[in-house]
């Protein structure tokens, strides 16, 4: 999962294999793969939009304009607006640390950064309840000082930050490791300072990976359900995010409303996939450019291959 953008960059040029399957085998395999994806991927995503517009565009927009839905959208924007920047700053620091230095405990740190991925979203919510809930570690102190974290907005933001926190870091670590630090080291010998190197060399170099990391982090932050559902308390108009609003509307049999909110989140997911595709193309063309320039520096190939032919 990590470094999809970079891993795929190496395969810019593929050659058609001379040997291969007969035409009907190819058609059979392609159809089987497409049928699998149609059943499991295309049917659900198409259903979201079909159901959202099943009663016409008027009902769709009316469903989105409901007060509770607008409150949910506002809370979701606020949550992502805090969680994403926090994780972007962390992602840059962690990627810089892991890709530029060797130190003791590095692989342990990488494992810890990945931890939230292997923790169930429900457990991600539970740990914050155990810390800040009424009967949690800090619960009594918080209620003495009249601070509410669980069943309130701060808990939602914390749980969201926890769940989405490896996303930017993982993407950047993979891209930075693949690109190496030659340019940064060159800049250092030319007298650039640390912030200058980061701002003028590294960030421009990784911009597509960073953009994909940010967009993915944002999509996941806006769409997080399990962890947020545990800490939110489902207080209408106050602690309902968009995915929780989807659940409430669906359970009230308000299918148009539920799918209307879901369609916004689905559109965001589709945009995320597009950005990923663009980031992959950018990585491939960067790799191709580097290959071309290193070929220009290498000795002409003809001289090498002639050796084999001329006795």
């Amino acid at each position: 999962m990590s470094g999809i953008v970079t891993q795929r960059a190496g395969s810019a040029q593929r050659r058609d294999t001379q040997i291969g399957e007969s035409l009907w085998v190819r058609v059979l395999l392609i159809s089987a793969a497409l049928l699998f994806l149609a059943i499991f991927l295309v049917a659900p995503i198409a259903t979201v939009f079909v159901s959202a517009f099943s009663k016409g565009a008027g009902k769709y927009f009316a469903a989105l304009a409901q007060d509770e839905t607008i409150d949910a959208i506002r809370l979701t924007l606020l949550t992502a607006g805090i969680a994403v920047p926090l994780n972007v700053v962390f992602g840059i620091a962690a990627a810089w640390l892991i890709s530029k230095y060797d130190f003791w405990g590095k692989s342990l740190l990488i494992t810890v950064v990945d931890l939230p991925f292997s923790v169930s979203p429900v457990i991600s919510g539970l740990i914050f309840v155990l810390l800040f809930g009424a009967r949690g570690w800090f619960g009594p102190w918080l209620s003495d000082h009249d601070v509410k974290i669980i069943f309130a907005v701060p808990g939602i933001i914390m749980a969201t930050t926890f769940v989405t926190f490896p996303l930017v870091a993982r993407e950047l670590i993979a891209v930075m490791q693949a690109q190496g630090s030659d340019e940064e080291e060159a800049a250092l010998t030319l007298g650039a300072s640390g912030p200058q190197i980061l701002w003028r060399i590294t960030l421009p170099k990784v911009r597509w990976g960073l953009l994909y990391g940010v967009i993915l982090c944002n999509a996941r932050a806006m769409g997080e359900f399990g962890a947020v559902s545990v800490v939110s308390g489902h207080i209408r108009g106050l602690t309902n995010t968009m995915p929780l609003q989807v659940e409430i509307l669906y359970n009230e049999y308000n299918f148009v409303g539920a799918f209307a909110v879901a369609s916004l989140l689905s559109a965001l997911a589709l945009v995320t996939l597009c950005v990923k595709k663009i980031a992959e193309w950018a990585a491939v063309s960067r790799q191709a450019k580097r290959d071309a320039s290193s070929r220009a520096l290498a000795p002409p190939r003809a001289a090498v291959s002639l050796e084999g032919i001329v006795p």
Partner: protein
Amino acid sequence: MRFKTRGVLPGFGLSLGYTVLYVGLLVLLPLSAMVIKASSLGFTEFWLKVTDDRALAAYRLSFGAAFVGSLLNAVFGVLVAWVLVRYRFPGRSIVDALVDLPFALPTAVAGIALTTVYAEHGVLGEPLAKLGLKVAFTPLGVTMALTFIGIPFVVRTVQPVLEEIDPDVEEAAAVLGATRFQTFRRVIFPALLPATLTGFALAFARALGEYGSVVFISGNMPMRTEITPLLIVTKLEQYDYAGATAIAAVMLVASFGMLLLVNLLERWARRAEA
């Protein structure tokens, strides 16, 4: 060129300090709160809570459905990766992009969409019901949802390996008289095996903890279609913090076990490549 053991670039102390502080506050502190809470229960109480009938039924469903779903993904994931890498057909790059949809789509959205598709009068639910297969609100529905969220893992781990396989090897096998199927079974498949297993383990680990996409389609009947994460939520809603924590600890151990397995598999894969 490296001075001492680290890199030459500035900012080591700053980035190390910030990263460790952030990870410590946001990840290690909350997780250790859970571990301490679970260990404060006392062994007998802990054991009773994690082995009551309802919990056992939930583990069975979670592990069983996650296993079947990941197995489906292992088979079809290799097929999809193969088709995407080896063949050219219209719409290939759209299909390639769509594979990541389960990463980007909120789980609650996936949940209500899958339920609608597989409900008794849904697009796919109706024909399946005529065949006598009830999907929504049964363990089969849980398996379908867990298959959906696991799709990208096997495809994305197998794809790069498949791209790196040298066509010369396959040509050599063909020249030596192997049929295409023999070449796949004896030459290509062994090369793909470590990546396939890694993808399987990743999909399995994700499926174990999955909540949002399952709660809608499962129907949530205790003992029958109640997955373990839902049981944790139910216990929390009844303010049974101890019970929720105990079961969560079991799940946490299971997912750390999977994480360890994935690390070992990746190490094996790297050695197989070298």
